[in-house]
Structure formats: structure tokens, C-alpha cells
């Protein structure tokens, strides 16, 4: 397939999160700039994101009021309404967002996760229109979206997100949810539950068993110690406990099979054609099996070609 390039707008921005109203206003500006349609709701906005393939998702972002300095997020579509997610705001807090017309990645610069909430990401993936010579009913998605965040109620630990790892280890807390043609796989009824069905990114690894805790494994590298660049396929199960199935891939992103610090904006693997047609930022923090790089704007290079490691 290669890079699923939405064509933009590509938005990368930072904004202040001192107060819930200020945060809501700040993220509204960026999502609208990325092409989302905003409709006012109590305390905030409901945003409609539409993918280049015509699939859509809504995200309500609002200030719930009360004494806690939090902002809530809730993804939804025709058949499903997701769990309420949250981020903590406060004086001096700075947030960053990478967004396009149908997905966004919200985080705080230099912060991989926070028990009180600092990461929310999700949206509509690119989905196969045909595969292996012909489309099938199962592949003809009419409704597809995913979401995850780091708050799950623990006072001590954040849940894992793509900010901390690409694969979802069944022994790790996850706060993922996803919808595929009316089938809603989510952890809403069991916050922070374990499960293999939580959305994750397919990783390219050596053939042996790998370990989610101690990464004493064989890294996936080209001979000069450079990373393999491949498509960010997203997979999830129909239920929290079901085996993940590849649904499609993230828009405007690639995976590098190498650990990079979060928020890095330079990788040698992306410095030349075809990738230099865009500018990039790494969302994933030093994860052994790879890092998720997002398009944050147009670059100075030539016309982007499509990588095609996988289809």
C-alpha cells in the first residue's frame, strides 16, 4: 500500500492548556485548521472528521465543569459511543497536536504518559478498498475508527498508548476501543482491562517470541543499523479478547523499526526521497520495536512516492 497520504491539511501545533476552557479553545482551533467540522455542545465542541475515503468519526471535547481541571473526550459514530477519556490541564501545561482531516494525536511535549491523562489519539484509518484482486464485503468498511488514551483511573500508572508502544501486550493496561461496521470493541466496561483485542500497530520483528517487558531481543535493522520503513497497519479484535485483525492503516504516518525519542523530528531514514516531501515527528517514545512517525507538514523534497513493504 505505502503511505496513506490524506493530502492534508497537515497540522502540527502546540497550545496552552492552563485551564479547561483555554484547552478546549486551543484544540478547536487546530482541529478546524486540520479540516474537522466543529459544532457547539455544552462546555465544548463536537468535531466531525471525514477521511478521504468518506468514512467519518465524531469527537466531543468538552469541559465537564466541576472542581477537577480536566477536559473530556468521547469518540462516536452511528453505531457506537466510546468511553469518556480525559486529560489533565493546569497552569503552564503545554500540549501538542498532530492532526489531519480524520485523525489526531494529542500529547504533551516530552511526556510519554500521565495517570491523570495527557495523551488522546484516534480517528478513521485508511481501509482497503480492494485487496488481492477484488474487494469483499468484509473489507468494504462503512464505519471504522479507533481511539486510545492514557488515563484509566489508576493513581499511579498511565495506560499504554501509541505514545509508549506499538504492540499491545496482553498483560499491559490498555484503554483502546475501535469500531468496524457496527462491531464495537472497547474497554469501556472494564477500564484498563487486559486483552489482546485492543488496537495496536503491527510490528515487524524477528521470528522468535518477543517480550513486552524486557526487550532483550533482536532489533529489526538494515545492515548499517538503519530502520526498516513500513506501513502503520492498525489491528484490533472484534472483542477485547479476540485476536487482532488488520483493519487498515493510519493516515499520514509510517513506522520505523527503531526506537527514537518521542517528539524527534529527524530520522535519517526519512531524510531523503521519497519521505523528505513531508516533515515528520515521532509520536512513540523509545519503543524497542519501532516508532510511529507522523506527517506534520509539507517538506522540501520531491513528490512523495509510496513505500510498499506490505499490502
Amino acid at each position: 500500500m505505502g503511505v496513506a497520504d490524506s493530502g492534508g491539511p497537515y497540522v502540527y501545533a502546540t497550545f496552552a492548556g492552563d485551564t479547561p476552557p483555554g484547552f478546549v479553545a486551543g484544540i478547536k482551533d487546530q482541529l478546524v485548521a486540520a479540516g474537522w467540522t466543529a459544532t457547539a455542545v455544552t462546555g465544548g465542541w463536537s468535531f466531525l472528521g471525514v477521511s478521504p475515503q468518506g468514512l467519518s468519526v465524531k469527537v466531543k471535547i468538552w469541559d465537564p465543569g466541576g472542581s477537577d481541571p480536566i477536559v473530556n473526550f468521547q469518540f462516536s459514530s452511528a453505531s457506537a459511543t466510546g468511553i469518556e477519556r480525559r486529560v489533565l490541564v493546569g497552569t503552564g501545561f503545554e500540549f501538542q497536536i498532530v492532526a489531519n482531516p480524520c485523525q489526531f494525536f494529542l500529547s504533551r511535549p516530552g511526556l510519554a504518559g500521565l495517570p491523570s491523562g495527557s495523551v488522546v489519539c484516534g480517528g478513521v484509518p485508511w481501509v482497503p478498498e480492494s485487496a488481492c484482486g477484488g474487494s469483499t464485503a468484509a473489507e468494504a468498511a462503512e464505519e471504522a475508527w479507533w481511539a486510545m488514551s492514557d488515563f484509566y483511573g489508576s493513581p499511579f500508572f498511565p495506560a499504554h498508548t501509541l505514545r509508549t508502544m506499538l504492540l499491545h501486550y496482553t498483560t499491559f493496561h490498555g484503554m483502546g476501543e475501535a469500531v468496524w461496521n457496527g462491531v464495537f470493541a472497547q474497554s469501556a466496561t472494564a477500564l484498563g482491562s487486559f486483552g489482546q483485542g485492543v488496537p495496536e500497530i503491527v510490528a515487524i520483528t524477528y521470528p522468535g517470541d518477543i517480550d513486552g517487558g524486557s526487550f532483550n531481543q533482536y532489533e529489526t535493522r538494515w545492515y548499517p543499523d538503519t530502520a526498516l520503513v513500513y506501513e502503520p497497519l492498525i489491528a484490533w479484535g472484534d472483542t477485547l479478547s479476540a485476536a487482532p485483525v488488520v483493519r487498515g492503516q493510519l493516515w499520514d504516518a509510517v513506522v520505523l523499526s527503531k526506537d527514537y525519542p518521542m517528539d524527534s523530528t529527524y530520522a535519517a531514514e526519512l531524510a531523503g526521497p521519497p519521505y523528505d516531501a513531508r516533515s515528520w515527528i515521532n509520536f512513540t517514545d523509545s519503543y524497542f520495536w519501532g516508532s510511529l512517525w507522523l506527517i506534520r507538514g509539507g517538506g522540501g523534497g520531491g513528490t512523495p512516492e509510496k513505500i510498499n513493504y506490505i499490502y
Partner: protein
Amino acid sequence: MANVYYAPARATGGVKHVVDGTQNTIQSAMSGVRDVLLNATWTLDTMRPGHARIPFIFQVPWGSPDGAGGWTGNAVNPGNGYVYGIWQFVLAIDGVSYNFYNPVAGQEVPPGHPVPIGNSNLATIASLAGELEDWIATAYDNSHMDIEYAAMTYDDVGASSHVIAGSAAITGSTEQPWGGGYRMTSQAPSGNSSFSIWITEHDAHGLGFQFPDLAAGGDPDYEIRMARSNAYDVWANSYGFGLWESGDVPQNPPAGDSYGQNRSIIATRPYLSSDVPVSDVLSVMWGQHREGMHPILFELFKGRMNGAITASTDSLWAFYLPRTNNTRSDIVTTADKPLMVDAIIAMSPDNTIHPRMLGWFTDCFISTDGNAIDGQAELSGNLWDAVRCNLTDSSAGAVGTLWLRVN
């Protein structure tokens, strides 16, 4: 789709490989493999006849007088041609050394292949030669040895002092029904080299492949021997070849076949990535099964990189594969179809560090599921009209199928 780099030509065929008391099937298998490779634009460099006369040398080291009218150590009395005491000698045939020893003395002499010969501690060179003829005839399927030249040379420094040094030697040749073969050379993918193989009948028992490029220390006889079977499929393109037993995947080595237990082999020069500063890369894998991907399943691997030969160790090569979670399983789409990914081979550059990706097996890609061998279901009417599946695993946690383009 996955990146697939194509060779200029491809060819397939099938060969029988059954030892039926004659060498006909071996010769047929050899020529069958040869023809497939020729059709895939390999060149035939040279050949050697199946009935070769292989030179040998038979040496008996001298001993010395024991001072009491006898001899001590290994000894041939140059005065009468008798061999005394504890003796041994080495016979080299077609690169294989055999140590012979005196069974009366009972002294086996490693290394090599100790073989008892003679029944006395007193024998003439001529009688030993006769017993040697008998041994070869028995051990090598009635091959015939002709002693063409026999000579004894010695240096009797002084009979009175009985100080004698020198050696006795018999030279000659033996006609054998093995040893034939074809030397063939592949083409070279961009950035890499060609490689040569000998298609051999490694003895009267079966088909083998020698890889001069993998010969450590100049050993020309590094050979991978194939199990006897009813039929093998042969696949080749301009840069490599594969051969595997037709039909189902045996899970155990062929019973009693001590000469060759391998049922599959694939050897190729990968198409090297332009970003990889290596050259001279050769990848050879073989094993008792047609399943692979996981290094412990494709039992043996030997390679070459930058002029150095890499070892046959599990952790030193791999095809890296997609996965979800922390256990390997089929990776499929919502339509229950596998992903198709690049067949990138990774090898350790120095036998000590982890494998590094180098380039692509040509005319190949990998699907992220297990498949019945030779299956084509997922690919019919699709990328290629007909393909064969060479490597399949469904038993030990590694899932993936290497597909080879055949037309």
C-alpha cells in the same frame, strides 16, 4: 503490494531421486536439475563424468629397527617389502581420507575413518594392496581399483646400523560410479555476485550440492546431501535455485538414510538494497522439512557476506515478519487474507551480532500465514498465475509462507 524484485528468467521442473541399485536415477536427477538451471539462464561451466578415475596414494610410513632383529613402530622393511608391527596408512579418494590400521595391533588412528584391513601383523605391500582393492569394492558398490603403479622408495642410510628412513607408496587410480557432476554458475543481481555450484552424486547413494563459495579453507567438497525420495520439485531463477521434496512435509528424517537427510534447499544471491554497503552475499538454507521462517525450523543455514563465510547458527539469519501482540500468529485482514510482505533476508555480518537486513530474495514474497505446501489459493487470479509455496510453518509459533514466482 510488497516489493518483489524479479530475475530475468525463471524455470521449474521435477526430478526423480530414487536409488534403485543403479545410478540411473541419480544421473537423471542431476541432469534434471541441470536443465532447470539452464532454462533459468545459469551457465554450465564444466562437468565431470560419472565414472571417474580418481587418483589415490597409499603410503606406509617407515619404522625403525628395534635392535633385536625386529621393527618397532610403523615399519616397512625395504629389504623384503614386509610390513611389521603396528602400522597405519592413509588413503585419500576424491577428497575423503581414510585411515587404515592393523587389526591385530588394534590401534585406531583418528581422525578420519579408521578401517581395519589386513589380518596379520606381517604382510607385504602387495598383499595390503590386494586387501585394499577388496575393501574399496565392498565399500563403494563394486567399484574397481586398478593399481597402475607401485613403487617403494627408501633411503637405507646404512644397513649395518639399521638406520632406515623413507616411505613406501603405491599410487594408482580407481574407477568409481560416483563423482560425476555439473558445475553451474548463476547470474549476478545488481550489487551482488554470481555463485557456482556442483550438482553432484556424492557417492553411489544420492544427489548432492557442493558450494565452492561456502568452502571454508578452500575445501571444495562442502556438500549438502539430499534424502532419497520419489520426486523433487526444482525451481530456479537467474540468481538462485530451490529444490524440495514433492508433496507432503515429512516430519522426520528418512529412516536409515545416513547419506542424505535433507528434503529441501534454497540457495540464492539476494538483490541487495542500495543502502546496504555489502557485497558478495550468498544465502543457502536447507533442512529436513519444507517449513521454515523460524530459524529453528529451517535447520541449517550457511551464508557468505563480504567474502566471509557465516556460520550455521540459529540466531544468525532470519526473515523478519509482522506480528501483533507478543505471540506469533497469523496476521490477517478482515477478509481473513494474509498480508504480503517483502522477503528480506537478514544475516549476521560477523557471526556474533544480531542479523541485519541485506536485501530481497528475488521472485519471492512472504505471506503472513501458514499454507498448505504448493498451495495457490490466495494467489489465484492475482499477482501471479501460479506459484509454489516452499516454506511453511504451522506448528511452532512461526507463521509465514515464502512464495516463489514460477512463470
